[in-house]
């Protein structure tokens, strides 16, 4: 059990080399499942490797349970890590792979055997203990990798994209297995992924990273429904949030463009007045778009018009891609019966409380009146279909 605290952590390669992680402030509470989420090259794996002790820290302070560990070797941090490639020792049996780390720590042979058998029983590896990694399937190897971390009973578990090499079905199973083990062990876990589904389903909190910096930290639904900036808004959600250029008019409390007209019910007069007549970015999630105005239940709503680029029937739903007159594309997630001809003009509707506003220059969200749990609750209960 441990609290991991990153205070202004920086990673720079070489003396004057590029900064790949910049001023990361992050506290992972005892027993928390923190997901570091971001695209390739955003610095999430480097951050994890600095926590592990596999990369040196160029600046800032890393502490575990109040003890600064910047210069503590990996082996003395009491951390276990599960790698994307599993990193099983190919010349050792499953049992030896599990016991390898314990042997180094001078744990008595009987205790090692007990722990290996216990973990093997929990993960269903008991019949495989004598096998070499080459004789295991991908899912079995991943369970051995997980077992190798569990058997050490460390303070902190680190996961570096552990499900990336598994097929879709195995990924779901192994995801459940890791969640189950987190509930069972109650340990602090830090999990790196670029997969938003993994982040949303596994994390107690998510730390979204972009270009070496923290873009937003929060509970999965908070981050999804209250994105701090356009990067988070686009990165979380599939299809990504639709972002449209508009001009704000404070007097009528509307954002509009040739294709778009949206009431701005969620922002204070002061916020709107400060941006009166200026360009803003208006965001609406694909699932908050409706093709039938009746879906708005009579509430004030916005509308956007575009020409059909593509219709993607997915079975349970249909994705409609539109091109806007002023340029740009938007996607709507609509009921499965919706169809549209190519290049047909289509009008879509959305509720006023489904709209987000972002600053055009910084990309930062313009805070609405209602934030926090209430806003998330309202968003979850919002229905457009």
């Amino acid at each position, binding site marked *: 059990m441990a609290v991991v605290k990153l205070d202004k952590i920086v990673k720079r390669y070489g003396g004057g080399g590029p900064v790949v992680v910049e001023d990361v402030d992050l506290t992972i509470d005892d027993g928390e499942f923190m997901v570091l989420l971001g695209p390739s090259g955003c610095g999430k794996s480097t951050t994890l*490797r600095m926590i*592990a*002790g*596999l990369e040196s820290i160029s600046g800032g302070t890393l502490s575990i349970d109040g003890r600064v560990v910047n210069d503590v*070797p*990996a*082996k003395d941090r009491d*951390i*276990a*890590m599960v*790698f*994307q*490639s*599993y*990193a*099983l*020792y*190919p*010349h050792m049996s499953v049992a030896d792979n599990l016991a*390898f*780390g314990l042997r*180094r*720590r001078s744990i008595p042979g009987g205790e090692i055997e007990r722990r290996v058998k216990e973990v093997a029983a929990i993960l269903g590896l008991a019949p495989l203990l004598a096998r*070499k*990694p*080459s*004789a295991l399937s991908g899912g079995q190897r991943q369970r051995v990798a997980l077992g*190798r971390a569990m058997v*050490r009973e460390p303070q902190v578990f680190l996961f570096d994209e552990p499900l990336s*090499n598994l097929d879709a079905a195995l990924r779901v199973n192994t995801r459940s297995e890791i969640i189950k083990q987190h509930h069972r062990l109650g340990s602090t876990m830090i999990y790196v992924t670029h997969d938003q589904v993994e982040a949303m389903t596994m994390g107690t909190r998510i730390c979204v990273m972009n270009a070496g910096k923290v873009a937003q930290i929060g509970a999965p639904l908070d981050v999804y429904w209250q994105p701090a900036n356009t990067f988070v808004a686009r990165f979380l959600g599939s299809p990504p949030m639709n972002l449209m250029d508009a001009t704000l008019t404070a007097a009528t409390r509307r954002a509009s463009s040739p294709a778009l007209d949206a009431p701005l019910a969620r922002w204070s007069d002061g916020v709107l007045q400060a941006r009166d007549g200026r360009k803003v970015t208006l965001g609406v999630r694909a699932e908050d778009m409706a093709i039938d105005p009746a879906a708005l239940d009579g509430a004030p709503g916005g509308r956007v018009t575009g020409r059909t680029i593509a219709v993607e029937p997915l079975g349970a739903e249909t994705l409609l891609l539109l091109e806007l007159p002023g340029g740009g594309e938007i996607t709507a997630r609509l009921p499965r019966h919706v169809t549209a001809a190519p290049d047909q003009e289509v009008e879509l509707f959305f509720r006023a409380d489904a709209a987000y506003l972002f600053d055009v220059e910084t990309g930062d969200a313009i805070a609405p009146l209602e934030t926090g749990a209430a806003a998330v609750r309202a968003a979850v209960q919002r229905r457009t279909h």
Partner: protein
Amino acid sequence: MAAFLAAASGRAPLPRLFSRGILALVLGVYTIYQLGPFLWLATMSVRTTAEISADPYAWPSPMHLDQFRTAWVDSDFATYFWNSTMVVVGAVAVLTFIGAAAAHALARYRFRGNRLIYGILFSSIIFPPQITLISLYQILVDYNLYNSLFGLALVYISLQLPLTVYLLEGFFARIPQDLFDAAKMDGYGDLEIFWRIVLPVGMPAIATTLILNFIQLWNEFLFAVVLITDPDKRTLPIGIRAFMGDHFQDIGMIATGVMISVIPVIVVYVFFSEKLIRGMTAGAIK
């Protein structure tokens, strides 16, 4: 349709039988081509020179197996064999350990001059070893290592080290970094990781260099004949040369001597090639 009917009746289709037959024929011819000289040598090793001169290709009758005893006892082959074993086994052991350690360092650690050292090592493979013969001779004389098995072993190590490092570095560089990181997380230091991870995982490459070095050095003649003059310190290739006079060559005893010298090479190859194959079929880690 023919293939379907053949499959249905449990027989291989005709084209496949034909291609297999061709393959077997080619392999058979190649095996005879390779094995023929060796078998001829084996027959000559149990015949006298007079018998060989009378009919070089005749079957040995009677078999003079006592030629092996004569070579081993009367012609000091036991001494030559022991000398070769001392020099080659010692040199190969040191080569394997130092070569693997150097290859691991070059493959795994970033340090200033890494590629420069690698380049210098690699460049020494390009030049023929004979160009170093005179300078090596002088160095060994200066350090009282001339006419010494230890000196010869040192020369062998320096001759084969670049190729050993070159071959092993290429293999070690392909061992995934995650394995090293996992071992670090498991609590192991650099030296233990080399011993417990790099050497076992790199065993196919190590076995390859071990076989290559052993065969190369066991048969090495040029440096041995220049740097060793004392009859008691001769290695096997120089010992065999003793049967070659200016006017008379004892072909039978030369063949016997060659057979004695070939046996360890075969043993080493058979033993380590099995390890090699086992290592190669161990499978990837992903």
